[in-house]
């Protein structure tokens, strides 16, 4: 069931600590308060004790004043005040009054309680109390059936309702509020963030108290934040791409319009049409390709590729295209350079780099492919002698539709080649970056080596 124990910062421990602590607290409170309340309710109240002690003092006075007859008179008088049985007994457990005790009464005299004894909630009958005379206890004691109004524990149910009902309910409510604050409030903030995204408010970010949390909710918050930023950049890139694309399409369209208005003879018009259509098609294809590489989440199927074999095809093609002599495209790699990649996108990346290098080379320039093994990877580089680019533009050349100062519009490039090349490499787990090599530009590629 437990595949792995939750981490140290997991919300599990917080919950476990809180719940276990709360349960133990509740149990302890109920138990100790229940006991306390029961105990408190078992004793006679102070008032009851005063009244009853007073009775005993009166009985003693009555005895001292008139012995048996005094007691009788006093009992008579008491009979009107208290409805229960009252007697006065001596040391020998015999009545001090003139009326002797009957059998049942004598029997009950053996179960007498003191004034400060706890009464049992379980006993059914009304208890009889024995209160010794206050001045001289050896003379005798008052025995009285506890008057009903003095019965302890009459409000016990109220106390019990409070200790085992109301107070636990209140505490649970507080506990619930705490849990809600701990767990649901961050979720609500996430929901607000999601709603903000739905309303295209991209600059809305989660408060730091969520993203800095160490537990799962913090992780969720960070993942959410990461997703927001990724969506944000993705939308920005797509919008930029769309703007650039429509801008780039205007160039061939305006040229077509000029041709349509200005060109008088058919054959040059046909040739121009053909050129412009080719250009527009390449532009649309390349843009789609870039968008596809950017959004594709499925891993490209990888295979082992021999770089030299690939280079030979591409070099042959480049010579056809540019009219270069094959000797100007050189490669210092040997047949042992195998990488693991996706053939078609890798070929396209390398082809774009090669075209770019050829386009920017001087009339007698050379283009060279080199590389070395770097652990589990191959580091390849393509050098040209085209003078390179300014240091602060080394990164910018990989952005789509970037054309540097000095390159003419419509010279075959839309500024997509390097961008596609980098995205191709990234899509197969590689990387690409540029540097100046002194004579020109060096584009570096990092690719996974074939597993031997």
């Amino acid at each position, binding site marked *: 069931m437990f595949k792995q124990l939750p981490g140290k910062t997991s919300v599990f421990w917080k919950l476990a600590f809180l719940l276990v602590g709360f349960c133990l607290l509740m149990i302890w409170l109920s138990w100790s308060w229940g006991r306390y309340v029961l105990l408190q309710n078992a004793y006679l109240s102070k008032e009851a004790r005063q009244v009853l002690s007073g009775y005993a003092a009166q009985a003693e006075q009555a005895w001292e004043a008139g012995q048996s007859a005094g007691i009788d008179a006093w009992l008579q008088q008491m009979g009107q005040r208290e409805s229960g049985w009252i007697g006065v007994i001596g040391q020998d457990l015999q009545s001090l009054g003139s009326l002797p005790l009957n059998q049942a009464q004598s029997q009950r005299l053996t179960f007498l309680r003191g004034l400060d004894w706890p009464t049992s909630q379980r006993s059914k009958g009304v208890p009889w109390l024995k209160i010794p005379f206050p001045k001289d206890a050896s003379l005798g004691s008052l025995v009285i059936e506890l008057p009903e109004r003095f019965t302890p524990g009459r409000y016990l149910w109220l106390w019990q309702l409070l200790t085992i009902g109301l107070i636990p309910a209140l505490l649970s409510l507080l506990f619930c509020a705490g849990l809600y604050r701990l767990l649901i409030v961050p979720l609500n903030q996430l929901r607000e963030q999601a709603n903000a995204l739905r309303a295209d408010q991209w600059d809305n970010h989660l408060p730091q108290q969520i993203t800095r949390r160490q537990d799962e909710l913090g992780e969720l918050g960070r993942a959410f934040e990461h997703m927001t930023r990724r969506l944000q950049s993705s939308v920005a890139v797509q919008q930029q791409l769309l703007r650039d694309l429509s801008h780039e399409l205007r160039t061939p369209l305006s040229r077509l319009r000029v041709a349509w208005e200005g060109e008088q003879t058919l054959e040059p018009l046909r040739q121009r049409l053909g050129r412009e259509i080719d250009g527009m*098609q390449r532009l649309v*294809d390349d843009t*789609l390709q870039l968008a*596809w590489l950017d959004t*594709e989440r499925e891993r490209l199927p990888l295979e082992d*590729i*021999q770089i*030299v*074999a*690939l280079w*030979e*095809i591409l070099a*042959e093609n480049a010579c*056809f295209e540019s009219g270069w002599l094959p000797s100007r495209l050189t490669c210092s790699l040997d*047949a042992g350079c195998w990488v693991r990649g996706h*053939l*078609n*996108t890798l*070929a*396209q990346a390398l082809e774009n780099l090669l075209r770019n290098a050829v386009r920017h080379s001087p009339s007698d320039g050379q283009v060279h492919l080199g590389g070395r093994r770097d652990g589990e990877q191959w580091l390849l580089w393509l050098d040209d002698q085209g003078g390179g680019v300014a240091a602060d533009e080394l990164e910018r050349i990989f952005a789509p539709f970037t054309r540097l100062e000095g390159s003419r519009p419509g010279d075959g490039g839309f500024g997509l080649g390097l961008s596609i090349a980098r995205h191709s490499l990234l899509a197969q787990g590689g990387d690409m970056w540029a540097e100046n090599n002194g004579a020109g530009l060096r584009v570096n590629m990092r690719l996974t080596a074939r597993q031997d």
Partner: protein
Amino acid sequence: MTPERIAPPNILAIEDDPVLGAYVHEQLDRCGFRVTWCQSGLEGLKLARRQPFDLVLMDILLPGMSGLEVLLHLRGEQTTPVIMMSALGAEADRISGFRNGADDYLPKPFSVAELQVRIEAVLRRVALERRHMPAVPIPTQTTQGTLTFDELAGDVSFDWQHAELTRSEYRLLEILWRNAEEVLSKPFLYQQVLQRGYSRHDRSLDMHVSQIRRKLKAIGYVERQLRTVWGKGYVLTMADADV
């Protein structure tokens, strides 16, 4: 390039765009095909069931029944080769077209010359398959010129040295050897050797060619060379003295 044929091939074109449809119809007629053109998938399916065609050319986005659905129905009943056309162009579409059994896929916009090459490649492959089925006229070991073909091992050797070709490389070299001095188009070679359609950025065939060249060079075979014919395809030809 054209194998022996008596009747012009029958082609069923299903394309809902009237301009493109009429143009394709007219141009293919001019190239010597007999074209039946219809504008909806359901109609096309009915036609295909009524009479046999040599090839079906079909758009993916069609009114009523989509091209992929028509393809699914067709594949359940017959083996007529199918070429899909689409402006969707996305990679995903290509893949789903092939999974359903299309023989080739042509992204729009395309030129008629390109379409013609694709159609001929598919028709030629089908014709070769039908002809070769009964008996393969290659003995286990044939010595042709000085290169020895070993059909069983799927390899060639020269001066007792084996080139160690892979299966695809062997098939490619064999078909080029059979048709030596003839330029074979990439779409045809894809159909014949790799059993799939060709697309612009596909480099698999080029890699095979590159490997064959390297391997033949490694065993010292120089009499014939595998040449690239720019924009057309590949040819196996006698080496020039000056190269």
